[in-house]
């Protein structure tokens, strides 16, 4: 075999090996870590107890460095007012960061609607936050692996890796995600992971004066939240999307969007 043939063969061989290894690295990426975690965080919201004070939203924004006056939030509270005809009016003025200091319905465009007290048959507040779904559609659609589900069920966003395509924001059926106004990456509630990982409660749970918000570990049968979920009538939001949400509601009425 002459030199030319040898070089050709060597180049072809190296190329083949590099190609094979590269493809293997893409289609069968290395499994770095495997195991079952002892914790799976779940959340409980009692909509009977919520008084619409909005301290949870304020605490969340300040704790998680979301600009207070920006119209995005990791959590918010919705108000629902139902009249005698069964008409439902709902709003979430400035995501309830300043609470509900008026009974008017915010219709957008600077327009408001007043509902006379005697016409109100049923009205309540519904706090909402990321459901940390067991089958998160937002994680499924991330093209680069910047958002993921951690071993304990919390869905996190890697700020250094997010390219800002916004696919995860479009894929969330609950509207939980948004672009952080300063970091320009996807952001969402992560159950205050920096707090719960050291035994503290999320900022919203701590701030809530009525015990509306509670966090627990579904894998611990003695956990008070687990006990409620297992023994009381609870509901999840929009189960039809198949995302298997892990935020449970007491009193989730059919008017809730």
């Amino acid at each position, binding site marked *: 075999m002459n030199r030319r043939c040898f070089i050709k063969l060597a180049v072809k061989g190296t190329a083949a090996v590099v190609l094979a290894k590269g493809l293997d690295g893409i*289609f069968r990426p290395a499994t770095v870590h495997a195991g079952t975690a002892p914790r799976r965080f779940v959340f409980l919201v009692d909509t009977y107890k919520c008084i619409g004070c909005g301290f949870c939203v304020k605490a969340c924004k300040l704790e998680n460095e979301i600009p207070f006056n920006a*119209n995005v939030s990791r959590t918010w509270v919705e108000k629902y007012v139902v009249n005698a005809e069964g008409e439902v009016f*709902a709003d979430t003025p400035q995501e309830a960061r300043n609470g509900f200091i008026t009974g008017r319905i915010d219709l957008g465009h600077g327009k408001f609607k007043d509902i006379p007290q005697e016409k109100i048959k049923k009205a309540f507040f519904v706090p909402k936050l990321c459901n940390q779904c067991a089958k998160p*559609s937002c994680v499924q*659609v991330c093209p680069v*692996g910047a958002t993921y589900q951690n071993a304990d069920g919390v869905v996190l966003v890697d700020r250094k890796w997010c390219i800002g395509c916004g696919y995860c924001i479009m894929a969330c059926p609950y*509207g939980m995600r948004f672009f952080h106004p300063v970091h320009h990456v996807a952001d969402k509630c992560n159950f205050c992971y920096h707090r719960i990982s050291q035994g503290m409660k999320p900022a919203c749970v701590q701030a809530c004066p009525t015990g509306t918000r509670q966090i627990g570990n579904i894998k611990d049968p003695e956990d008070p939240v687990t006990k409620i979920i297992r023994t009381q009538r609870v509901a999840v939001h929009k189960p039809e999307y198949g995302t298997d949400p892990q935020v449970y509601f007491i009193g989730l009425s059919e008017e809730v969007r």
Partner: protein
Amino acid sequence: MVLESLWTVKEFFVYPNEYIYWAIQIVMYPFMTGLVAGAFVLSSLYHLFDIKPLKEIARFALVFSFALLMVAPLTLLMHLAHPERSFYVGLTPHFTSAIAAFGVVLFVYASIVASELWFLFRKHLVEVSLKLKGKANKSLAEKIKYWAHKILTLGAMDVSDASLKLDAKAVKILAGVGVPIACFLHGYAGFIFGSVKANALWMTPLMPVIFIMSAIVSGVAFCMLIYIVIMEMKKFIASRKRSTTSSNTLKEIKGVEMNAMQTTVKYLIFFMIFSISLELLDLVFRSYTAVKSWDILRNVIYGKDFINIFLLQYFLGNLVPFILLLLPGLTVRRAVPALLLVLFGIFMMRWNVVIGGQSFSLTFSGYMDYQLPIIPRSLETFKEGLGGVLLIAVMPFILFWIFNKIFPVLETKGTD
């Protein structure tokens, strides 16, 4: 503070984090890749099936497809919040996401088009480089031209008949292989939308097929339009010369043009019928099954977006050009506005899907209005505004002009 609030106006009950995140550049992206796919399919119709009247337009369509292909990723770069990280999709692709397919598909398709162009123009590249090689005292421009052509030949200097036959065969194979890849390039864009179960308007298995069909329509219409423009320019130049030879050339050009046009129109009509049937089927199904989301979708489709959908897309963008193209005795004068309307219709289809899908809230009780930024007051309102659109619209022509210097397609006597 919130960037997207610059072009989103909310009405009634909308979740706080809902804005129109996928704006004009996400409308432009499928429009551009649609033109890419369509131009390639048109080119392949000639190379695969030897449809003689398409010879002129086929070569030109391929070069334009390549130029458009270079511009399509630019729309995405202008959309991304972190464009400098765009290559992460090649580093850690998450293939459960349709967007991750983008990197692979784009690379494969670009390779096919580039290779096919190489085989088509290899003889020309060799001829130019040999001609310039012999020339002493080359100017700087000629030196660059020489080296560019020499490198592009990849050292394959044999232009014997046997060699060129191999080239033609390779072109045929690539044209054939390229068609499904071109369809995939645009079909996956349809999949990106169709698989989002959270969006009531986007979620349908028909979406990838609708996108592919309308892509072919747009690509064919686009190439026909540019071809007509070029032929008209040639006719204008020929008619000004006023001699017997030039009047023969004029007749020749006219004849070729009409032939190519009539054949291409047949294919255009076929794909237009296919495309509009699928869209109407989707609408009929939705209205018939009337699932939970139908109330708000009906308000958007028949109310807020009625003009965009029925007047602009279906009537002006489909029905009118349909009639114009089908009436007997098709002339260039009638074809041009028809083709422009077709392109407009396909653009509106992308708009109605992308923006339309974000016109209603996840609450199904609120709306969002999109206001395209016209005057750029910041980099963001340029990128995702009219400025960005115009830049994308102009780039393919600039690139085509550059590519034409290496892969010339604007002569009647083409090498093949």
